[in-house]
């Protein structure tokens, strides 16, 4: 990404935050500089880890890079989230499962610009907070994936039996 575009974006955000009537976000805005320094740390540690058995350890390291944030101007019940390096794969599925939640009044996702690897999700709720709805959505997707895996495996075995008999 050209550095100019980045600088411009930050300016916009800052002016947004300082607006007197803007509702307060529950989250400190993470600057992009912080993100990059975190990436560096992970790279160094990764080279140290020679043992391949410790899969989990490596996954945790990757987790260190924070890839979700609340966008400025959000309130507890009406928030926008920015996901880095995500697209329609997670966006549309997450939007669907969050819309399935009766406590949610509105949910939509967008990819603001095709050249930026960012995906935004907007959630507005009747009950509970937007963060809770997002968390529930992500949990439900995991349950869904489990059920599909389970069903796929049994279907595969049944089909193999049918073919051999």
């Amino acid at each position, binding site marked *: 990404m050209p550095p100019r575009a980045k600088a411009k974006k930050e300016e916009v955000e800052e002016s947004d935050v300082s607006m007197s009537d803007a509702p307060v976000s*529950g*989250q400190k805005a993470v600057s992009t500089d912080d993100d990059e320094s975190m990436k560096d740390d992970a790279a160094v540690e990764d080279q140290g880890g*020679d043992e391949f058995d410790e899969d989990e350890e490596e996954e945790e390291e990757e987790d260190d890079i924070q890839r979700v944030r609340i966008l400025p101007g959000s309130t507890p019940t009406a928030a926008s989230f920015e996901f880095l390096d995500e697209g329609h794969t997670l966006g549309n599925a997450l939007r669907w499962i969050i819309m399935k939640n009766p406590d949610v009044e509105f949910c939509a996702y967008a990819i603001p610009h095709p050249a930026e690897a960012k995906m935004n999700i907007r959630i507005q709720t009747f009950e509970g907070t937007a963060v809770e709805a997002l968390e529930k959505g*992500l949990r439900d997707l995991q349950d869904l*994936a489990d059920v*599909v895996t389970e069903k*796929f495996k049994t279907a595969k075995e049944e089909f193999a039996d049918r073919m051999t008999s």
Partner: protein
Amino acid sequence: MKPSKEELERRNIVGVGAERVTNVTSTDYPGHFPGEDHAWDLGYFRDNVTIEFHKNEPLEAEFSLIGVDASIANAFRRMMIADVPTFAIETVHMEKNTSVIQDEVLSHRLGLIPFKGGKTGFRKFMKFYKKPEDGEEHSYVDFNTIQLSLNVECTHNKKAAKNETDVTKLYNHAHVYASDIEFNPVGRQEQYFSGDNAIVPVHPDILIAKMRPGQQINCSLLMHKGVGSDHAKFSPVATASYRLMPTIKIKSPILGEDAKKFQKCFPKGVIELQTVTRKESKEEGPFKGKEGEWKAVVVDPMRDTVSRECLRHDEFKDKVELGRKRDHFIYSVESTGQWRSDEIFLEAVALFKEKAKKFEHQVINMAR
């Protein structure tokens, strides 16, 4: 308040007209229909989702995933194409290339060759290679890089018959094939990639280059783990697609010669001609007194390509309704050979879960 069976069927079918589609958006959300729930319910989902296999071969699988929304089905399809990791040649050190094919073209061709090998090694032992930052050295180690080499030289075949015109007999190595690529295991790779698990091209007879006597190719190749979103050569599938299950509803009977014509509007096996039975011809209704005549019956709508040919004929226009089932996805997964086609789908679903899990942690982390 429960909707009637007809209403549920109406909601579940995407209409296909001669020049338009209707009823395309799904409506299964809470609050859409007064008095109906539609909230996410894992138990309900488990009872309603079905998977049926139609074909399951190592390089091609076809199955139906029934009872999920398009957003979920599409997520799985996208994961298969762009997020399931495979191995491909990423770096070529060209030591000598006197053949007529240029270095960069040859390198590109090498990159596209699919390889197979020990699956535990590929999945568990091998890790993604991290590109060095500016100023850093490359760190090629046994768990992130697989080394291969291609060393071929074209020479005259002394044993060839005098009047031989076939270049493959006249010369040695006139054609360079994928099978000429050698695998050079390093360190712990011996454990994971030996014997049947050795790393070899999926198709040994891929033609890489052609040479004439005196020409030579020497290069060492570095293979890394990668994902399809980075480069299509890393995609585990040739194609992964789905289509919705077609529906054909004959509203009023199509009989006699019309039935034969109707059958020809569809691919083979979709419509069957049956004779009107004596019983049917005696009952009141459209078949009365038509015993022995042909009638068109839908037997296998899955084979239909939804060409809409029948809607072009005036005699059928009002007698038939075409559509597709909104929640019935017929997947077709063609593997490039590194993974079995059914493994790719499972891997895609597992990675999808992984993604959701990762973000669940991140959201908790963010809210703290």
